[in-house]
């Protein structure tokens, strides 16, 4: 067994990532800008509610992410918790007593709040388990493309001249290749998997953000506070990180939130093309993809589509509302 495949290594890595995030947040909360933002956010009911929903998603995703040993191989914590829900023979409607079959309905072993899918698995459980895939794809890809896009965009906008030419050359080249072709090519080289998918989406995804940040930086550089910082003898790097970055950060928040749903859907497209997540990985994209055939049968199966899109909708809506609240909280003009 490879080192990385050991459960305790994976679980330690997960714990380390959470510790890192907590450490960064704790460090941020010591700064005056973050504490005043937090004060404003605490008075924002919508912001707090959406934050709560996001935390719930995060907990669900983590429960599915952490795997524990079982009799055969390993299962996720969420799987273990829902082990009592019986597996059926095939489709069944929400809260039905028999399987979905006009000719030969079979009695079910139990009731299912949101019905079951083609393999007889509980739709609600599958929807909850798919949170992990969405968060992994959305989170990992954002962690890759946001620093890349912000750094290159801000450098191009600040230094202009040959730096700008170079960055523009890079992103124009990437933008010129059809995105889906590029993604498939990268995935075929790197191999299937959620991690490699995040890398592939990250490589293609930074272009839009870099463009956005470059444009805004070009605009901000003309503003006299940059000249004032230069006249004060501040170094270029400090001007970039301390003066320009906070002034373009609102675009990053907006781009992250709007890009998130796109990333979740991109996962389903790639899975459909056969280069996405391994077969059997619960994902909303795969559920939406499967509903193409489910909606064309008679009687049609709507609960898989409804459950996955509702879950995706609630996640994206909360991200949007929370992003808005965050932007408002960080804007000093609204105190």
């Amino acid at each position: 067994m490879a080192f990385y495949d050991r459960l305790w290594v994976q679980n330690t890595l997960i714990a380390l990532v959470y510790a890192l995030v907590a450490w960064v947040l704790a460090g941020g909360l010591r700064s005056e800008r973050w504490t005043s933002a937090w004060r404003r956010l605490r008075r924002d009911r919508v912001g707090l509610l959406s934050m709560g929903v996001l935390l719930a998603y995060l907990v669900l995703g983590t429960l599915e992410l952490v795997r524990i040993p079982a009799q055969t191989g390993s299962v996720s914590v969420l799987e273990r918790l829902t082990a009592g829900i019986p597996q059926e023979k095939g489709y069944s409607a929400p809260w039905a007593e028999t399987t979905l079959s006009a000719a030969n309905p079979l009695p079910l072993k139990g009731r299912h709040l949101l019905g079951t899918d083609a393999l007889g698995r509980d739709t609600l459980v599958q929807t909850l388990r798919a949170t992990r895939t969405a968060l992994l794809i959305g989170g990992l890809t954002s962690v890759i493309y946001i620093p890349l896009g912000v750094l290159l965009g801000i450098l191009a906008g600040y230094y202009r001249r040959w730096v700008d030419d170079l960055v523009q050359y890079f992103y124009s080249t990437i933008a010129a290749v059809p995105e889906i072709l590029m993604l498939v090519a990268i995935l075929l080289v790197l191999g299937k998997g959620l991690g490699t998918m995040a890398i592939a989406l990250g490589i293609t995804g930074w272009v839009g953000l870099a463009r956005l940040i470059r444009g805004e930086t070009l605009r901000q550089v003309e503003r006299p506070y940059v000249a004032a910082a230069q006249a004060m003898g501040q170094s270029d790097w400090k001007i970039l990180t301390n003066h320009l970055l906070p002034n373009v950060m609102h675009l990053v928040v907006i781009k992250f939130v709007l890009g998130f749903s796109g990333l979740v859907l991109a996962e389903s497209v790639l899975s459909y093309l056969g280069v996405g997540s391994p077969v059997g990985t619960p994902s909303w994209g795969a559920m939406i993809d499967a509903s193409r055939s489910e909606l064309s049968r008679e009687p049609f199966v709507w609960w898989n589509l409804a459950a996955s899109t509702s879950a995706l909708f609630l996640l994206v809506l909360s991200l949007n509302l929370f992003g808005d609240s965050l932007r408002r909280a960080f804007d000093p003009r609204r105190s």
Partner: protein
Amino acid sequence: MLQVRNLSVDFVSENGRVPAVRGINLHMAPGETLAVVGESGSGKSVTGLALTRLLPEPPAVYASGEILFEGRNVLQMNPRELRALRGGGIAYVFQEPSTSLNPVFTIHSQIAEAIRLHRSDVADVDAEVARCLDLVGIVNPKQRMWDYPHQLSGGMQQRAMIAMALACRPRLLVADEPTTALDVTIQAQILEQMRQLKQQLGMSILLITHNFGIISGIADRVAVMFRGQIVEEGPTAEVLGNPQHPYTRALIACIPQLGQRRKRLTTINHEELDSLVPPTLP
């Protein structure tokens, strides 16, 4: 303290090199206030920015001359020395206070940044920020320093900008049209404040303005710039009372006099001056 010898600054454009400053000479003694007066495009702001090489290069090119600040040639300094000079030796106050302050930070954090940059020996930064704000006449500085720029009036913002410049303890303050964006009563207050500060701190001030009206109370000497050249220079009273150069005379004639009834405001006829000072663009 400051010696500018035969300084020429060109701008490279698609249509060739355009001279912005043409062989000017300036000198300033410690504690002295020099006003550089001229119309738009006369090269006065370029001169001010050139003192610490703040002009973006390209398009700017330092074609000739030298700038000696406390005996060292600014044009031969490396980037590190330049950064120490900017703010520490020569600090700037710009025209537009509302945009010269970073909108997302408090006044405190911006002045503190200046202090940390140039005076690492200061232990209590908060107290020093409050002291700087108190120096420029901001009432209740301990509370006001936590304000964001948009919470201050234009005059207060300019005071905060001056406090930011003073926080670095410069020997020379370059004030580039410091009062142009402010209304007349605030203008007078700010200028009076600068005059007092100069006496308190013993620094020199290079006041760049297009407005002859504001210099008489504050400047020791005046240099009149026109088309990239200094056409006249001398003690303020002399230049104002007995202008020698036709351009200076024309400029002074343009100041509207209180109580005088005129149908039209006086303007400058530039063609008449072409033979004396050739235009920069052919």
